[in-house]
């Protein structure tokens, strides 16, 4: 069906040259064989092209409007978004799918379980876009506790950026701590070496307390050093116990950062142990102790993958479009891979080996020999995917949540919406536009085949 494969499949055998009827067919017989197909094709495929063209010159209520509907295509904001998104789709989806397909096809060639790998990557082609859409709705869920992608994303983020373990912690009544600006808390007075400090906080729910938290312990006095305890001065069901003093039923704040501040500068910083105790050197003597705001930041909640925010600045690619494109790549990279692998199998090994013997490294062989030899196959894959992408509907319809569907809009979806809204004029104009865009491919298909057929 595709342009170049159309030509390849029509391998002309010697028999084709003499493909005259062996029976001396009566025309009536030919008509009988062809009629069902031609009637269906005529009524359901050819006639609609003409009708759409005709209908596109009339408005919603059926009055002649000339090119009015076409003007609307390029002036209406929602439709313009669809056109822009379709352009983004046409650029990104086929190229990413083909690039991945090429990489996979080349890399799996020499792997024993390459076939299993290919089968796995190819598998999504067998399922419906609806099922794929539901699969990716789950993947892209915003809540990092439920959406797999954000779970990974937040995990990676928290590995590199410090995560805060105590987002809701704050000082209680009569606390030795006071707000220190920008979300930090600082001791009201300066601390002295050799005198243990108590730094009580409240407000971390039990289930959010880090697992390693141990019962809080009053720090021992160490001469020449500043010691202290940072803990949750409250136990569910037991209240605060002795206020501003650690009880064993209360929990330490493991890993909370404590800074010693003198004259606005941090002179030392440390982290509390599991039982909340911490030790600072003599440098902290006479300083105020501070819990920096990083201890209390709201947890990072990941990316809104299905949101309308810009994913790539300046290009107008929003997250929801990008996410749907990636789900498309998941489905179709296997298609590219299989076609390219078949092309690769036909590449003469001698050429690759000759290049290697001449001293080319693997990358050079790939870049200078493999890719040029595969160029025709790559072109077929790209064109096929572009035609496919032009009509993309199901994935956007399923994955994009209702409130951002206009931001994820594409032509086929807009056509459907116009159809449902009974705006036949605009729907027809979009249909004509889609049809015009596939005409070049149609022409190439027919041309290629004409040579074969008429031989």
């Amino acid at each position: 069906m595709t342009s170049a494969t159309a030509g390849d499949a029509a391998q002309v055998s010697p028999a084709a040259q003499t493909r005259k009827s062996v029976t001396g067919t009566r025309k009536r017989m030919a008509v009988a064989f062809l009629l069902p197909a031609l009637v269906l094709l005529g009524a359901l495929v050819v006639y609609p092209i003409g009708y759409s063209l005709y209908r596109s010159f009339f408005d919603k209520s059926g009055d002649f409007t000339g090119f009015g509907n076409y003007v609307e295509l390029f002036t209406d904001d929602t439709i313009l978004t669809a056109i822009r998104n379709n352009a983004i789709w046409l650029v990104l989806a086929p190229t990413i799918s083909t690039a991945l397909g090429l990489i996979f096809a080349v890399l799996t060639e020499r792997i024993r379980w390459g076939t299993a790998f290919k089968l796995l990557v190819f598998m999504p082609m067998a399922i419906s876009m609806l099922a794929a859409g539901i699969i990716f709705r789950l993947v892209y869920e915003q809540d990092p506790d439920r959406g797999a992608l954000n779970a990974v994303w937040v995990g990676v983020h928290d590995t590199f950026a410090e995560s805060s373990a105590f987002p809701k912690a704050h000082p209680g009544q009569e606390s030795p701590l006071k707000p220190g600006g920008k979300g930090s808390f600082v001791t009201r007075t300066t601390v002295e070496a050799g005198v243990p400090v108590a730094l009580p906080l409240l407000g971390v729910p039990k289930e959010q307390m880090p697992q390693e938290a141990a019962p809080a312990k009053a720090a021992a006095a160490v001469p020449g050093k500043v010691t202290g305890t940072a803990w949750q001065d409250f136990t569910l069901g037991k209240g605060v116990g002795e206020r501003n003093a650690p009880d064993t039923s209360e929990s330490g704040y493991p890993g909370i950062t404590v800074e010693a501040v003198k004259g606005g500068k941090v002179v030392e910083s440390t982290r509390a142990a599991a039982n909340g105790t911490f030790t600072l050197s003599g440098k902290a003597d006479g300083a105020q102790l501070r819990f920096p705001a990083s201890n209390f930041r709201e947890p990072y909640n990941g990316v809104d993958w299905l949101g309308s925010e810009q994913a790539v600045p300046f290009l107008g690619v929003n997250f929801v479009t990008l996410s749907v494109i990636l789900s498309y790549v998941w489905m179709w990279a296997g298609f590219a891979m299989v076609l390219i692998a078949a092309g690769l199998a036909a590449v003469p090994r001698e050429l690759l080996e000759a290049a290697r013997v001449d001293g080319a490294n693997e990358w050079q062989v790939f870049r200078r020999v493999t890719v040029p030899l595969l160029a025709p196959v790559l072109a077929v894959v790209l064109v096929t995917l572009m035609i496919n992408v032009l009509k993309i509907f199901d994935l956007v319809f399923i994955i994009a949540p209702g409130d951002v569907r206009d931001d994820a809009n594409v032509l086929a979806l807009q056509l459907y919406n116009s159809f449902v809204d009974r705006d036949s004029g605009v729907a027809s104009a979009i249909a004509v536009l889609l049809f015009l865009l596939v005409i070049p491919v149609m022409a190439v298909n027919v041309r290629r085949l004409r040579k074969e057929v008429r031989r």
Partner: protein
Amino acid sequence: MSADGRTSEAGGRTSEAGGVVKAKRSIAARITGAVSGGLLRVFLLVVGVLWLVPTIGLALSSLRDPADISASGWWKVFTVPSQLTLENYSHLLQDETITNSLLSTATITIPATLLVVVIGSLAGYAFAWMEFPGRDWWFLGVVGLLVVPVQVALLPVSKLFGTIGIFETTLGVIVFHVAFGLPFAIFLLRNFFAEIPRELLEAARLDGAGELRLFLRVVMPLGGPAIASLGIFQFLWVWNDMLVALIFADSKNPPITVALQQQVRHFGDNVSILAPGAFISMVIPLAVFFAFQRQFVSGVMAGAVK
């Protein structure tokens, strides 16, 4: 199809030749080869896992009860395997909308597949072996239709179907799928039939076979591989379709894709319906895919412009 056979043969032959050259490579090259080979395997393994994870996520989600689904991610079952339950499935299979929609999908898919094979074979045979004026031009016309987007037909055909009274009926969906499956069917089968050796047809002719007999007894059996490819391709295409069904199917008796699509609008609290539903809808296509990979691949190779 025959082209595939040829290329894979060629691949086999040349890789033997490659083996000979490889054996002469230096030890150093072999060591770097082994290291990069190891990295390659790790890379592919990671990609493979990455490709599988979304589907596993769906499968495991479908096996957890609604409360668990809303509380945590599907990976929780690795630490709490006791969460796994078949309850969603038993609920779903008792739900008549779902079972009916599965039946409806089958009612659409099976006739749409058979009809495309039959009508496409007749036309393919006519284009390959019958003589009539403008034969090749007509065929080229059909080839041109390969890339016509279904979207072009939605509005006109819905009007047409309205006029003849099959809009929003199962019959309408079937007819639509047959029409849009035909260009590929005719293209594929005509090219395959055209390669049947003339001698075979002549021999049958000498035995006194008429046109119809020739078609049924010689061409159709020989066309088996192409017909299988076409059938599988069309089957999956129709089974998986949502757009055509959304517009043309009987809204009281929709196929599974449309039934599930109605649930997606309320995505969030109904994952316990959507996940197993999607999985059930995937079972048959996946079974067909794994059972007939070869035919499916050759169908896809012959073209997927649809």
